[in-house]
């Protein structure tokens, strides 16, 4: 039929004709075996949908936790600040000045001489002395002195003591209290004077004077 083939045939001896016949290439018919498409498509769409939905959920949850983190951080800051200020309040309550003020208001004074009880034999070490009002100390600064112009001399009016004093009279009670106060004050002054007196020393003007 076609010329090249016949030429080949003529050129080669017919020896290999059978082999050539056998070796002739033929086209394999197309396989028309069709795989079912549905599972594949549904698998892919399933993957796609799960992926997208999953990503969306993941993102949402990330966002959500980011919100939570932010608000919790804020809360932590607020709570830390609160803790700090409560701590500061506690320290203000523990302030020795405040404690001393309260103790003084309850009538307490520091003890003058330390003494201990030895627990092993119950013996008292040191000489315990009762604490006295004189042991008390001033815990607040002296008020600033007023200038002279604001300190008028006290006006002293002397009145005669009434002859009949009724016992139930409030005035007499008050007077008693006042005189007791005065007596206290006087005693205090005397104590101070005595203390000062024992240590008062004559000043001397010579060089290198020292006590």
């Amino acid at each position: 039929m076609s010329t090249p083939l016949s030429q080949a045939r003529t050129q080669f001896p017919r020896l290999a004709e059978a082999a050539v016949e056998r070796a002739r290439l033929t086209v394999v018919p197309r396989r028309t075996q069709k795989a079912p498409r549905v599972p594949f498509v549904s698998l892919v769409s399933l993957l796609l949908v799960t992926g997208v939905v999953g990503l969306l959920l993941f993102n949402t949850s990330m966002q959500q936790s980011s919100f939570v983190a932010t608000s919790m951080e804020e809360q932590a800051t607020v709570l830390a600040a609160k803790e700090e200020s409560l701590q500061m309040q506690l320290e203000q309550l523990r302030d020795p000045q405040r404690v001393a003020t309260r103790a003084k208001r309850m009538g307490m004074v520091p003890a003058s001489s330390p003494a201990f009880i030895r627990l092993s034999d119950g013996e008292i070490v040191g000489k315990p002395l009762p604490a006295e009002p004189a042991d008390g100390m001033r815990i607040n600064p002296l008020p600033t002195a007023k200038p002279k112009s604001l300190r008028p001399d006290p006006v002293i009016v002397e009145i005669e003591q009434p002859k009949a004093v009724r016992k139930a009279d409030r005035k007499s009670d008050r007077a008693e209290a006042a005189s007791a106060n005065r007596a206290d004050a006087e005693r205090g002054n005397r104590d101070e004077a005595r203390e000062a007196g024992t240590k008062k020393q004559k000043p001397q003007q010579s060089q290198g004077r020292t006590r």
Partner: protein
Amino acid sequence: MTQGTRPRTPGPSSPGPSRPRRRPARGAALVRLRVGFILIAMVVSVFGARLFQLQGIDAKAYAARAEAVGLETVTLPATRGTITDRNGAPLAESLDGLMITANPTLSAPDAGPIAKIVASRLDVDYFEVLERLRKPDTQFQYIARRVPATEARAVVAEIENRGYTGIDTERDPVRAYPAKDVAANLLGFMGTEGEPLAGFELIFDDLLSGKDGSATYEMGGGQKLPLGDNSVVAPENGSDLQLTIDRDVQWYTQRVLREAVQGSGGESGAAVVLDTRTGETLALADHPTFDANEPMLSSPADLGTRSVSDVYEPGSVEKVLTAAALLDAGKVTPETKIPVPAELPRQDRVIGDYWDHGRLRLTLTGVIAKSSNIGTVLAADEFSPEELHGYLSSFGLGQKTGSGIPGESRGLLPAWEGWSQINQDTISFGQGVSVNALQMATAVNAIANGGVLVQPSLVEGSATTSDGTEVGTDTTTARRVISERAARQTAEMMEAVTDPEEGTAPAAAIEGYRVAGKTGTAQRVGEECQCYDGTFTVSFAGFAPADDPRFLVYVVVQDPKNDGGGGSIGGPAFHKIMSYLLRKYAVPPTGVPAPDHPLEW
């Protein structure tokens, strides 16, 4: 068969008839291809041009704009370290704080109610706030500064809830000193912008301040973007500083000192409490002092540490150093007999005692107990100037103590080469030399500590000051100044000072305890005339229990007006502080009877 199985598709060798049919198709593809290429090239070149414009021409401007849109950087503030006392009680602490600010252009209409809320909840003046809220021609006014964050937020929330505007907050850290004036002289204080201005706050600032960090993240709609850029540099908080001060002892000492200074009409005063064995300073008090929370309410002169910055002549307290040196050199014993004349002419001066007496026959113990200048001068004649100077300078006179307190002065001990006879005489009883209170306390403490001088310390452990010096209990040095025997004998002599009949300071005695001490009443060099102006420095240094000392207390009052001396002003203050210490630290009396050195012969 061969025919039927041949492929239908024509190969390259297929004959002609199919060619004319396929040529136009191939041409169309080529055309499509070329058109496509051109289109793509055009699009890509547009992209390229845009890329060049963005990256090449003004990349920085765009980058900056991009950052400005999404990125947010916040400073993560480092917390300033706490300063605590020896037991961990805070003396200075930092709080998260806010300042409340106002924009008067917005707040003016509601100024009344806003001011009412602010003034009722914070410590500010209603009328001042009102004025600031209404201030014309400004958009920024401070309403309250250094408010603890919780309080500030509550106030601002209330204002906003009521629907008022123009109020905002900004970070403004609070430095709080919960014990107010306690140890304020040591701690120093902070300025309005949170910068350290004095004291330990200033010299340990490198240690305390720490380093601010920062956080950068992308923001969207007021929230952090979860997967956005995010970088955090964590802040380095400042280190804490622990002092050897005991807050309660410091408080008590300050109150006793204030009572002593105010009670005597004194100008100022200082008190030192040392742990005898370790040199740890349990209290270092100054009066007048200030409230570290409100330093500006006090006079600038009161904001320092007078006890180490101011020098004065120590007076008779210094006699114990002379006596201890004489004992150490083996030149005297506590019972050495010294004939004391009524007055002693030396060079062109006459040395006298504070009380008039005829010729006295005192032992060295008697000289110390009665604080006789003449007796001390006669005893010190055993020394050459070089020897006395050597001892006094090894007691630390004329040198800094190395405690680390800023502004410490070294005092003055004149070089012995220039001493005349009268110089040596006055120096032997504490005039003509000057010291600061901590220095003098340290010197006397060497006697209490068995002859070993320990450097006083104020910082527990160790800390580096801003000038690079390491201070603290870890770096404390100790050196022997006098023999243990000389120290013990001096302490025994000092016990006679608190003797109820013979001593100069019976008020310093503590019932049941052996107390060693020495009074001092020195002439004071006035600031104006630079000469002795008739004012005095009175002081008392003592330690207890005398035979096994635990604490040393030194009290100094400058210029008392009540004609008192070291025994009557310093003595009672010493008594109170020492009793408190012995009780607080549970130091029982030793129970060993005191030796009875005769005072006279």
